[in-house]
Every structure is written in structure tokens, then in C-alpha cells.
């Protein structure tokens, strides 16, 4: 006799299975994910501390992470876009572009208040940009060069700001989304243009409470924030913690929710192993890269055959697999971050010298070129910056790669503070160089490579009018397809035909954070997404 389950039993079993499947989705935590929750204090370590409170003059993310929440910018990079490349409104509600790309007119939001209660108007935006682009005598602006395209900033009425450009610029909106360009109050700047170096007062979602040097910054919720309902957090506490092990311990011990810069793959794995589902990991290619500058003023690096040989020796694909386990590098990339709108597709990249799929072919060609240039068995000194991660592992790897084509390379490590002074003096033969951007935008990322008489930070120290011309063409091409064409030509000349510079591997950003943190999206830049207005905590 066979036993058949009764109908009631089958229904009961089905109900049980359905409830088991749906139960996790119906927990309060899961429901809370759907709707942001207000309250709580976000705690995060910051590995660096800025010298002053003025974002217009600082260069470190140590300003961005704790101070950006006190301010707004005219535009911002879309905080929900993982590519971190789309400018969206912030204090400007909308804009129009006229006169063939020479006039940008922005309509400002109404009712935006500074933390002192006064209204933010176009006068404040104009004063802010005048300080950055046309600083008065005695005031240094470190970003003046980035806005060379701007002829004038005008405020025709309290809610309209107009930028007049000297030539059309494809990158102009991205430039206005710079997280450094916090809008300051005009009246304060008029009285004392240095006031913001030691004080904080913006329109941002959080109000400054205190900064104890070397210790922490505290911000509390701005109840009158213009974006109604935001911010969700009651406040934040940024703790200055230099030591990476201590930062990891803070996350592991649940003393902090997130560190916004990055950890290594090993740290990620240890946190995941220790905390399981209490940790969520977000990763992204990082808009930072170590480059190799080959000084054209030193023989034999004035010979492009030697430079091509140096790049052909590098097995980037194998290097990526090995180094991504121990260092903060991963993606094989050209001049722009992979996965972003103007980046080279992998198939096209594989056509450039140093990116060919078969390393044996590359190295055979490298040896042939060295022989042809009379530089077989060449010996040189490779200068490296005295920062362990990722300079040290990358340099060791590079030296080994060059050894495989018969080069004899000696590494000289120079302390970080003295490093760029040494490169600026042009004392090096071959040196590790560095580039990091706040947004993946060709104008910003490619400027590094224009001729040395235009950009002294070009440590390969060449002059190449063809490359300069291509830079200008891509910068002024308003049509994206036309711009892409110029960028491809620029990249081919830079990395292949002339091999002026050599790219190592793109940095890789790993942010393991408490799973209680919601509303934050990793992007390719650790300078972005730190206004914290959309961030919330589940508990």
C-alpha cells in the first residue's frame, strides 16, 4: 500500500515553504531598506587631515571626507552613478548652454540657506568662483589653471549665474561639479578672503560642531537643509586614524561604519571572514594610477625605441592577477579608467604597445628594439616614492619585468616629501609618477601628458606639439563621438607611437562597510560622494 499525502498536508507544506522563502524579505531590516530611516550618527575613520578648512586651496581627501558635508557645490557628480562621471544639479537647479558652447547660464535653487540663516544667492556663487579663478593679489588659487577657459563669471540676478568661456569646453560641467568648489558666502569673503581657512559655514546638509586637531570632526544635521527630508543622519563623526590596521580594527570592532577611501583585498577578506553578513563590500576601478615617467632629457630615453621596449616588457594581464591580491591595483587600463564613457575598450587596448595579449611577442619586439637602439643590457636607476602601498610592490614587479628583457634596474627610494621636488628638477632617468582625479574626465586626466612647457608636472619632460594639439581638439569637441576619436588618437600617440609615458595598473578601490550603511555608492574617486545627504543607517 502506498501512502499519499493528504491535500491539507500539501497545502500546509506549500505555505511553510513560501513563508521560509519570504521570511527574510519581510524582516524589519529588509523593509527598512525600502525607505530611508532617519537618525543615527555615522562614524568613519579618515587617514589624512587637511592643513586648513578651505577646500579651494587644499588637495587632500582629508578635507573632502569630513568637510564636504558642510557645503554644497553648484553641480555635483550624480551620487547614484557608479561610473562617477555625470554632473547633476546641486545648488543650480537647471542650466542652458548658448553661443555655441561659450555661455553657460545656471538657474539657482530658491530658499537655500547658509548655516547662519542668510539666503544663498548668485552673489555667493560668483564670489566663490571669482576666488578660485580670479584670485585677488596675494591669494593663491591652486585650481586657477583648471579654469583657464573661463573669461568671466556674472550674476545678472539673484538666482542666475552665468559663465562666459573663451572657447567651447566639453569638460566644463564636470569642472563645475568639482567637490572642492564649496560655495562660500560672498559677504564673508569680501571682509576676509582667508576666513574660510579657519572657519566653516556653508549650505550643506550638516552643520559644523567641532574639530579637534589630530583627533576628530563632528557635524550635526542641518534642520533647514534645502532638500526637504534630508539628511537622514542626525550627525557624523570623522575620526583621524592614520594607521590602516587601526582603521580595519575599528570596522571589525564595529567602532566605525565605513572608511571612504579604500582598504586592500587582504583587509577586505579579513573583515568579511570576521563579520560575515554584517559587512558589505563595494568595489570599483579607481581613478588613480601609477605611471612611469621616462625622462626624455636623459639618454637613451630620448629614443622612442627604448621607451617602447620598456612598456613592451610589462605583462600587465599576469601582473593584474598577481598584484591585485596584495596591492590596491587591479585593472589593465589605458589613459582613462575602464568602464567609463571615454575609456578604451579592451579589444582596442590590446592593439597598443605593452597591451598585446601574447607577452612573448611583446618581449621579443622589446629586445629587437633595444638591440636596434644600441641599448641591450641597459642599466638605469628607477626612482620610487617612499610610500609602501602600492609603490613598493609595483616597483618590485616592474623591475622584474624589465629584467626579463635583459635590463639591469636599480631602485632608489626617495622620501615622499622630497620626491616631487626631485622629479621637478629633472634629475631622474626613469621614475614612478602618480595621477589621481576627482572625476573621470579626459580634460582632467589627460592634462598631465601635455608638453612640459605647458604642464611642469609632466615628468617625462617632453615637448610634443602633435599631442598638445590633440588635447586641445578633444577638449573643444562638443560632440562625444568626435571627442572619442581625438582621445583614441591622443592615447595611441602617448602610449604606443611615442611611448612618452608608461601606465602600470589602475588602482582598485575596495570599501568594505557595515551593512547598516545605506544610500552610499562607491565610484572611481575617493573625492566623490561625501556630502552624506543620502546616507542612512538601518539601526
Amino acid at each position, binding site marked *: 500500500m502506498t501512502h499519499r499525502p493528504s491535500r491539507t498536508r500539501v497545502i500546509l507544506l506549500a505555505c511553510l515553504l513560501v513563508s521560509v522563502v519570504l521570511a527574510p524579505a519581510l524582516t524589519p531590516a529588509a523593509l527598512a531598506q525600502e525607505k530611508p530611516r532617519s537618525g543615527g550618527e555615522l562614524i568613519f*575613520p579618515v587617514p589624512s587631515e587637511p*592643513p*586648513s578648512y578651505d577646500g579651494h586651496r587644499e*588637495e587632500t581627501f582629508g578635507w573632502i571626507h569630513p568637510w564636504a558635508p558642510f557645503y554644497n557645490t553648484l553641480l555635483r557628480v550624480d551620487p547614484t552613478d557608479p561610473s562617477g562621471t555625470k554632473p547633476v544639479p546641486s545648488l543650480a537647479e537647471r542650466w542652458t548652454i548658448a553661443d555655441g558652447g561659450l555661455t553657460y547660464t545656471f538657474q539657482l535653487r530658491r530658499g537655500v540657506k547658509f548655516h547662519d540663516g542668510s539666503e544663498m544667492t548668485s552673489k555667493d556663487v560668483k564670489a566663490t568662483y571669482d576666488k578660485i579663478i580670479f584670485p585677488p593679489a*596675494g591669494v*593663491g*588659487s*591652486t*585650481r*586657477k*589653471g*583648471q579654469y583657464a577657459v573661463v573669461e568671466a563669471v556674472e550674476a545678472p540676478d539673484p538666482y542666475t549665474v552665468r559663465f562666459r568661456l573663451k572657447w567651447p569646453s566639453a569638460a566644463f560641467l564636470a569642472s563645475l561639479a568639482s567637490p572642492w568648489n564649496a560655495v562660500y558666502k560672498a559677504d564673508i569673503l569680501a571682509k576676509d578672503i582667508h576666513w574660510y*581657512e*579657519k572657519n566653516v559655514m556653508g549650505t550643506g546638509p550638516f552643520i559644523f560642531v567641532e574639530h*579637534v*586637531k*589630530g*583627533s*576628530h570632526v563632528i557635524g550635526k544635521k542641518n534642520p533647514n537643509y534645502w532638500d526637504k527630508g534630508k539628511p537622514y543622519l542626525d550627525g557624523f563623526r570623522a*575620526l*583621524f*586614524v*592614520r*594607521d590602516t*590596521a*587601526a582603521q580595519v*580594527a*575599528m570596522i*571589525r*570592532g564595529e*567602532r566605525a561604519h565605513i572608511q571612504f577611501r579604500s582598504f586592500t583585498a587582504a583587509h577586505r577578506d579579513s573583515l568579511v571572514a570576521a563579520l560575515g553578513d554584517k559587512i558589505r563590500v563595494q568595489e570599483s576601478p579607481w581613478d*588613480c594610477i601609477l605611471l612611469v615617467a621616462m625622462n626624455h632629457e636623459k639618454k637613451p630615453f630620448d629614443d622612442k625605441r627604448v621607451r617602447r621596449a620598456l612598456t613592451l616588457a610589462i605583462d600587465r594581464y599576469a601582473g593584474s592577477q598577481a598584484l591585485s591580491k596584495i596591492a590596491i591595483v587591479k585593472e589593465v587600463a589605458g589613459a582613462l579608467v575602464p568602464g567609463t564613457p571615454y575609456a578604451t575598450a579592451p579589444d582596442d587596448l590590446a592593439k597598443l604597445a605593452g597591451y598585446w595579449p601574447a607577452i612573448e611577442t611583446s618581449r621579443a619586439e622589446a629586445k629587437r628594439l633595444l638591440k636596434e637602439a644600441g641599448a641591450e643590457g641597459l642599466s638605469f636607476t628607477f626612482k620610487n616614492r617612499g610610500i609602501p602601498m602600492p609603490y613598493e610592490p609595483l616597483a618590485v614587479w616592474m623591475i622584474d619585468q624589465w629584467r626579463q628583457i635583459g635590463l639591469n634596474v636599480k631602485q632608489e627610494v626617495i*622620501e*615622499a*616629501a*622630497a*620626491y*616631487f*621636488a*626631485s622629479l*621637478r628638477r629633472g634629475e631622474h632617468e626613469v621614475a614612478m609618477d*602618480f*595621477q*589621481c*582625479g*576627482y572625476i573621470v574626465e579626459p580634460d582632467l586626466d589627460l*592634462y*598631465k601628458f601635455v608638453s612640459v612647457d605647458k*604642464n*611642469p*608636472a609632466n615628468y617625462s619632460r617632453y615637448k610634443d606639439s602633435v599631442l598638445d594639439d590633440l588635447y586641445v581638439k578633444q577638449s573643444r569637441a562638443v560632440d562625444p563621438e568626435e571627442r572619442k576619436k581625438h582621445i583614441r588618437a591622443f592615447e595611441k600617440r602617448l602610449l604606443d607611437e611615442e611611448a612618452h609615458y608608461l601606465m602600470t595598473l589602475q588602482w582598485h578601490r575596495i570599501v568594505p562597510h557595515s551593512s547598516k550603511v545605506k544610500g552610499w555608492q562607491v565610484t572611481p574617486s575617493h573625492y566623490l560622494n561625501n556630502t552624506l545627504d543620502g546616507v542612512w543607517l538601518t539601526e
Partner: protein
Amino acid sequence: MWKYILKRFLLMFPTLLGVAVLTFFLLRIVPGDVVEARYAGGQGQFVDQKVMAMERAKLGLDQPLWKQFVDWMWGLARFDLGLSMWTGAPITQEIKLRFALSLQVAIMASIVATLLAIPLGIVAALRQDTWVDYAVRVFSIAGLATPSFWLGIIMILGFLIIFRWLPPMVYTPFWVDPWQNLAQLIWPALAVGYRYSAVATRMTRSAMLEVLREDYIRTARAKGLWTKLILTRHALKNALLPVVTVIGLEFAFLLGGLVVTEQVFNLNGLGLLFVEAIARRDYTLTQALVLLVSSAFIVVNFLMDVMYAWLDPRIRYR
């Protein structure tokens, strides 16, 4: 006695002057400057050389070296340490913030070290070549061989893995919340105090062994003096001379030398400030910190000289 003290006191000033001169010129030999450190890295590609020249002029770095030196010395003569080249804030303010923490850790570590070292050293000497002596020697050699920052890391990992607890990461002054303050600082004090005690324990042991073999101790025993009295009044007082030296010098070192331990426990102290000031080529702050730490060493040395005279009458009559 007073002549001896006055002589020692006056000797402090030429020493400090020598330190000031050396620090000023040695720092200028090191390549790079504060403006370069601030602007020339990755993001600084748009920074105009004119802006950098202007920043240098603001800080007085465009002046001839002799003028920079005279200006600094003139400031020192007026007890004005100047402004930090990195933050623009008064140096006294920068140091004041960190000094309380560093001083407290140094005091706590010294107490831990003294409480461990002197009893252990005495016991080891009195029970020479017994298991007690061996145990104390193993304990102190382990302390010498263990870097305090490593011990700190082990402590933190132990707290995390076993107790799922971490010491507070932000400094709270003792008078604001004593419990919070001690919960943060007791661990670095123990980590540092252990290594510190190891040196002092060995010193106490060897000094006691030497003193216990002296004729006057034998005489005291022969005349039937109570052992405790022999130890405290005759032996320990004489054996303490080198121990006081070690404790004093370690204390001065702790004020500015706890760089890695401060990093491990995230202490906002003078050691970390020191390293950052050097890395950033903040000349004015580095000079002030070198002077501060040197002054601590010099003052401690002076106090030790005075104590020597008190402990050993032969010195003051010399």
C-alpha cells in the same frame, strides 16, 4: 650643594642653544619643503609655480637662511615659537593639544614600570639563582625583546577577537571622564610600561646584587641589623642611582618617542605630531618639538643630577 646645582642649571642653556642651531640647519639640508609637500603630489598638476613661490614667500622661505635663523632665535628669546608652516596655527596651540595626552601616557607608563621593576629587581637579587630569579629574568628579557607596538597590536587583536571590544579611539581628558580616559590610555601605558620595566628590572637587580656584596652591608648584617632595614635604608638607596637614571631618561623619551605605539592605539600625541611635522617639512613645528623633547631630556638630567647629590653625599661634597 647649591654651587653644584647652580653649575648644573647653567649648563642647560648652552646645551639648548646647541640643539636649536643644529636642528635649524639640519632641517634645511633635507630636500623638499612644506609647499612642495602640500601641492606637488598627484592632484597638484594644475598648481602654478607662481602660486608655490607666493606660498613660500608667505612663510618666509624665500628669505636668506641667516635671516630665517635670526628671526627664529628672536622669537625664541621672546618665548614665541611662531606658527606652524602646515596649519598656520600657533605652535603652542598645536603642542598643547597633544602634550596632555603624551605626558599622561609617560607618567602612567613610568608608574607601571616602577611598580614592576623595583620589587621584581629586589626579589630577583635577594633570591639570586633560584627559580624566582630565573622567572624574573625571563620576564624582563621577554620585555626587552618585545616591541611595545607589537604588544599593542596583540592587545588590540586580543580584545577584538576574544572580547569583541576595542579601547576608545578618541582622547577624553581625565577631568572630563576619568573612566573613558583610563579605558583608552591604560593599554598603551601597559604596553610601553612593560618594555620600560624590563630595562629597569635588570638594572635594579644588578645594582642590588652589587650593593649587597659591599662591606657596609656585611657590617650591618654582622651587627645584627634587621634585614628589612638593611635593604631599605642601606642597600636600596645606593642601588637606586642607576635605576633613577634609566627611569628618568625613559620618561623623557616617552614624551616624544612613542610614534608607532601612538599609531597602533590611535593616540593624538607628540610622537605622531613629530613624525608628521618632519614628513611635511613643517620646519617651525619640528624645531619647536625638538626643543621641547631636548628640554625634557635636559631637565630630567638636571633633576637626576640633583637626586644623585641627595642619594650620594660624596657627589655634593666633591
